[in-house]
């Protein structure tokens, strides 16, 4: 037992970069920078659009032409349970595989601390979905970032989009389109409807920490596995469901995308 602990200590020391030897954050006004990096994957591999064939859990071959999703409402959590919530107005990110710069999001003025977990929403909360259009600039503007990620006939954002082609598809052009949205309705006291927003909490692996200090930068490197939209609690068959948008089945894909993300590692510079 003692040996194990000793081993663990050594490993921890080895694993930590030299900069990890930091003094604990004590100044409540101290702020630092965190970078969120979203790295899109297909299973164990890097995601390559269009040309690289993949296989889903249903055994169907496919290529992916579009993979994009919203993540929002970020909270950083320390080991002792202190929570830093990003200012709401600046906590909406659209990541799209065809736009490399969309992979990186820099958060400034993060209170100093050693963060071990990240909590966020996949999709856009109902409040923002129904907010005045002037409160939805940038990636939320249907004329800009959201041009491709918005339903005008059923006002609301598409939270995640996976498109491509597959010989297994029963669609006339052998394509598949998964556009998952729906925020739960309830507008004007209307009834609650399907809600495909999902909140997830990810833990930095190997007891890692994102160390936020005035003079440092922590980069949290997320993986998002596109194939997990199809594989998971429901293995989606492209032959059976080549197009899923506003239908009850969309919920199954939403359940799948809760498993789509993980934190691969953190760089503390």
């Amino acid at each position: 037992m003692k040996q194990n602990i000793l081993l663990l200590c050594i490993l921890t020391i080895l694993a930590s970069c030299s900069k990890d030897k930091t003094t604990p954050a004590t100044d409540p006004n101290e702020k630092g920078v965190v970078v969120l990096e979203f790295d899109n994957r297909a299973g164990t591999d890097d995601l390559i659009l269009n040309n690289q064939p993949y296989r889903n859990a249903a055994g169907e071959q496919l290529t992916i032409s579009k993979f994009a999703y919203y993540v929002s409402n970020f909270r950083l959590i320390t080991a002792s349970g202190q929570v830093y919530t990003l200012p709401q107005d600046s906590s909406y990110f659209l990541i799209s595989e065809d736009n490399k710069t969309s992979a990186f999001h820099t958060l400034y003025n993060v209170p100093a601390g050693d963060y071990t977990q990240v909590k966020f929403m996949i999709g856009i909360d109902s409040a923002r979905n129904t907010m005045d259009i002037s409160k939805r600039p940038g990636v939320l503007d249907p004329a800009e970032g959201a041009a491709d990620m918005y339903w005008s006939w059923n006002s609301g954002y598409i939270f995640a989009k996976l498109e491509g082609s597959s010989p297994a598809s029963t669609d006339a052009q052998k394509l598949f389109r998964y556009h998952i949205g729906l925020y739960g309705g309830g507008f004007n006291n209307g009834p609650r409807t399907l809600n495909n927003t999902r909140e997830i909490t990810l833990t930095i692996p190997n007891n890692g920490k994102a160390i936020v200090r005035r003079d440092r930068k922590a980069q949290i490197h997320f993986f998002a596995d596109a194939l997990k939209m199809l594989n998971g609690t429901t293995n989606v068959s492209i032959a059976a469901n080549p197009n899923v948008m506003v239908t009850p089945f969309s919920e199954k894909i939403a359940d799948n995308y809760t498993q789509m993300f993980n934190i691969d590692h953190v760089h503390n510079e």
Partner: protein
Amino acid sequence: MRHRYWWGSGMLLPLLTTFIITACSKKNTEPTPEPAKNIAFVKPAGFPEPVYRLADNPVTTDGFALGKVLFYDGLLSRDGTISCASCHIQANAFTHHGHDVSHGIDDRLGTRNSPPIQNMAWSTSFFWDGGVHDLDLQPIAPIENPVEMDDKLNNVIGKLQRNTRYQQLFEKAFGSPGINSTRMLKALSQFMVMLVSADSRYDRYIAGKETFSEEEKKGLALFEQRCATCHKPPLFTDNSFRNNGVAPRPFGTDSGRYKITLLDEDMYKFKVPSLRNVALSAPYMHDGRFGSLESVMNHYDGGFYPTATLDPAFKNGFSFSEPDKKALIAFLKTLSDKGFITNERFAPPPGFVQGD
């Protein structure tokens, strides 16, 4: 003095007027004349508080003028041929008269009948299925619909941004240069919320300024008994979604509200339409299946298609005698608002050509 809306008199006139006014005021010290073209939203007597958040987007003369130009401009469509007004014609209370389903770009057919644009400030949702919950968001749908205007919002914004006339109009309307989606949508909303119809013969009858024939009075009484729960005055809609028993089409069935909520209880329900100006807005129902009010009355005379969601109101013998139907139609005709459909303020700007 009658407040007059000047924009209809030409593009240059407002600029010219401002120029003359400023020029004049420099020469003499007389108080500048009261601006002759002020526009503001006025709630008609007896109407409830508007739902539209006017405080966030107060209607101004220049905002309204911009909204109107946008509404009548084919620039909002892919090939420049289709404007909002192509399908929403003032003389028909801003519906697409004579078309059961709307004709859009390249004469492509939609699947739904274009409803009147009137009293939008009181609507809690838009479209027959209520899929849009905010008037500001509504124009994105026709602009991007492949069978309507078939453009993309970002492309339309780009076209506006490159247009010097629009650069000026937006600056005037919003007090600083800049064209973006929020501003465009807010300007369109300003035009649309001003489309208030509240001066029909019925309104004047209620206000004691008009008399009704015996038949019209009988129609009103029947209406209050049998129709007003859904078509609730003064808006003639309670903004709810109901299944009034129009038979689902065997092909291309429109599931109505269900499309939006995916709730079984909403299958085949459609928004209760306002009946203001109904005599001017044929054809009727979400797919424009009925060409006349007579057909509508025949429907309400026991012609309900039984589905699980048929409104209870129609389940226990809902029918009318022929004279009752006539009286109801006579009453419905009192809801036409001449002033609304001829008001110059809402009329096409010069140079506008009404398509098919």
